[in-house]
């Protein structure tokens, strides 16, 4: 069993060859909530944000918003040889859509809590 996904458009493709376009704004409102809540609880901890352009920035999570835009404090660039211009910026705002990964502190991950929240959300959907 394999799932393929694409963000190209809000379209479901069916085996019969027809499409049905659905605006699911309300889905969005509910579903980004899990990670928004999770990151809010991580405020104050050290994380490493890796951007899609390969830049990796380590810093203290200052805040996060519903779009998963991330604000870091006391940041430093992980690969300083490659990105000398970014050396220790004080405050940093990162647009959510340019994030590839966030490396999380192990003490900030409660696996059971995450499983429960995910199941609850999945069951609702």
């Amino acid at each position, binding site marked *: *069993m*394999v*799932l*393929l*996904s*694409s*963000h190209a458009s809000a379209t479901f493709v069916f085996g019969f060859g027809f499409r049905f376009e659905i605006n699911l704004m309300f*889905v*969005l409102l509910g*579903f*980004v909530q*899990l*990670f928004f809540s*999770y*990151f809010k609880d991580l405020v104050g901890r050290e994380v490493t944000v890796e951007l*899609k352009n390969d830049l990796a920035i380590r810093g203290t999570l200052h805040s996060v918003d519903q779009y*998963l835009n991330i604000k870091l404090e006391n940041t430093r660039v992980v690969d300083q040889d490659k990105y000398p211009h970014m050396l220790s910026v004080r405050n940093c705002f990162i647009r*959510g*859509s340019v*994030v*590839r*990964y*966030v*490396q*999380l*502190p*192990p003490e*900030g*991950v409660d*696996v059971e809590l*995450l*499983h429960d*929240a*995910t*199941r609850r*959300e*999945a*069951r609702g*959907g």
Partner: protein
Amino acid sequence: MGSEEESAVKEPLDLIRLSLDERIYVKLRHDRELRGKLHAYDQHLNMILGDVEEIVTSVEIDDETYEEIVRTTRRTIPFLFVRGDGVILVSPPLRTA
């Protein structure tokens, strides 16, 4: 997990729900692959994975011989949030593996 309701597959994300707490394979844009234990996901395929191994494959052209050099780099990350918009494919663990 055991109840009939929970194991019913009604929509694609249900397939992923059944993989919670299991090791999954994730293919990302730009030749990145992840293997890790699925701890959380949402509708966008944002995920949190644990015990992650990442493999990045890059192809370079040798300046002199013009041969293709395929390079893979691996690293492990304890816990990783993965933004769903880079995800191309999610696969539960292979039963034969």
